[in-house]
């Protein structure tokens, strides 16, 4: 009898312990930062479609919805991926009623383009050649009295981790050099698969390459969207905004999960910072 009583007592004790040590659910800090000098609101969004579609690039019919999100959230700069080209960007800028200026990157190996939109009318755009692809950088000011910052819109290979790694290394080389003169933010769809728990294998070269790419970025930059969670369907966090490590404050960090329309497989990531 005493053995059963001891086991029952242990069982109850362990249940009580599990309840006592259960972590309270984390409340997300979604407070907006008041717009001041040095404050910046950035948004990144891959507006392309999931792999199952015939054309996985952005669709013109979705542009009004994309413009609505941008107008509503009012970011200082937007990094977009998977546009079909300059004509699509012009259509989007038209829907934004002249509030933003923008440019698309040059065409690399693929059939899709990265783009950056900024409010600053004096912004300059620089194509960044990375491994047979092009990223696009915009230099701009969030307010006329704010210091100049640089936003890079990037999109790494979706199918090959080794190519993602090589791309990342070259991109970060460029960003680190540019960061000597202005704060640099890197935003885009990096396709890093870092959730090992979701892999059926215990260890793969792909996982290692993505791990090392991500770790390489974190040597000089801060992952600003980490707390916001998944950014794409199937529980994937593959869209990132990286920023300087010495930011004064990171305010609102949010994945806008109701924003996707049509067969989009990504959600926009919004980050507010003070630097």
């Amino acid at each position, binding site marked *: 009898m005493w053995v059963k009583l001891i086991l029952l007592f242990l069982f109850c*004790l362990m*249940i009580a312990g*599990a309840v006592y*040590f259960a972590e309270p659910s984390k409340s997300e800090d979604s407070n907006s930062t008041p717009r001041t000098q040095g404050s910046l609101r950035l948004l990144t969004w891959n507006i392309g479609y999931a792999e199952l579609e015939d054309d996985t690039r952005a669709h013109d019919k979705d542009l009004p919805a994309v413009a609505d999100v941008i107008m509503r959230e009012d970011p200082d700069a937007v990094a977009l991926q998977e546009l079909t080209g300059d004509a699509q960007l012009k259509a989007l800028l038209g829907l934004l009623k002249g509030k933003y200026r923008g440019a698309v990157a040059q065409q690399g190996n693929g059939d899709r383009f990265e783009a950056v939109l900024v409010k600053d009318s004096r912004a300059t755009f620089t194509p960044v050649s990375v491994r047979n692809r092009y990223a696009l950088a915009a230099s701009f000011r969030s307010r006329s009295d704010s210091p100049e910052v640089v936003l890079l819109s990037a999109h790494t290979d979706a199918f090959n981790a080794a190519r993602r790694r*090589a791309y990342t290394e070259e991109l970060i080389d460029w960003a680190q050099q540019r960061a000597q003169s202005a704060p640099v933010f890197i935003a885009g769809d990096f396709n890093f*698969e870092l959730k090992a728990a*979701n892999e059926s294998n215990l260890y793969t070269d792909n996982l290692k390459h993505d791990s090392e790419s*991500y*770790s390489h970025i974190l040597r000089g930059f801060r992952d600003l969207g980490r707390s916001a969670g998944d950014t794409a369907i199937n529980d994937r966090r593959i869209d990132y905004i990286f920023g300087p490590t010495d930011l004064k404050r990171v305010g609102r960090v949010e994945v806008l999960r109701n924003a996707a329309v049509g067969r989009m497989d990504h959600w926009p990531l919004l980050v507010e910072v003070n630097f």
Partner: protein
Amino acid sequence: MFTLLKLELEKLFRARSFYLSFIVLIGFVALMLWGFYTYAARKTGGEAVEQFKYTYESKQYFNGLTFALYSLLFSFTLLLPIFVSMSAGSQIAGEARTGTLRMICTRPISRASLVLSKFLVTALHAGLLLAFFIGLNLVVGLIFVGWGNLELYPGPLNLVDVPGKIMRDDALMRFGYAAVSGTWALLVIAALALLCSVIFESPVQATVMTIAAYLTLYIVGRVEFFEHLRPYFFTTDMDFWRDVFKPEIPWQNLWHYASVCGAYTAGLLLATVVIFERKDIVT
């Protein structure tokens, strides 16, 4: 109770399967050493340097502690639960198979004490296996791969979100913690196998059923279709033991899951005792 424990210990140390489990672990360490050594040599050779400018695939990364960590994490998932299931699954069903269970139960000892003593011996076996395996990996790692700090990166092993490092002496301490937390996690398997050992008459059946339950939940837990069920699997809770290898040990989380595993173990043991006390022993 102490006499019972002494007798069960004698049985454990006399069993061939006890020594076989250690021999298989030695074989696994040898296999890991070969795989790790050739992988490290390939990745730190010309191939990686030509392809990538910046790499963590340095000789510093591939050291004895990294080797021991990889070996431990790989084996803990599949190898150690098999030996624990074999040890616990044969405890009661093995006695029934050999025809000694009925005789034991005619002696003036309670069935509950018998179950408890057999569980404690299984727990000792699990603890010895894990401690031996960790010690062997560290010694082999030191001799054949070399010492260094334990560097951790996001992705492989799924331990950290950002790159981290554990200094050598601290890392050695963490392996000590892992021996304790790992044994505690394995006790869930031991308790389940002991329950199966009471329910089924054959030790093979008890072991296979335990391993089948473990593997089913482990595999189903990795399939995205069943993601919402994952928190309810004991295999998910058992994963807490790895937390000791995080640069900052999340103690609260660790105690929570250790308590959940403890509840599974105590609950399964209680069920085992209740069923065994009511069981009509005919062999």
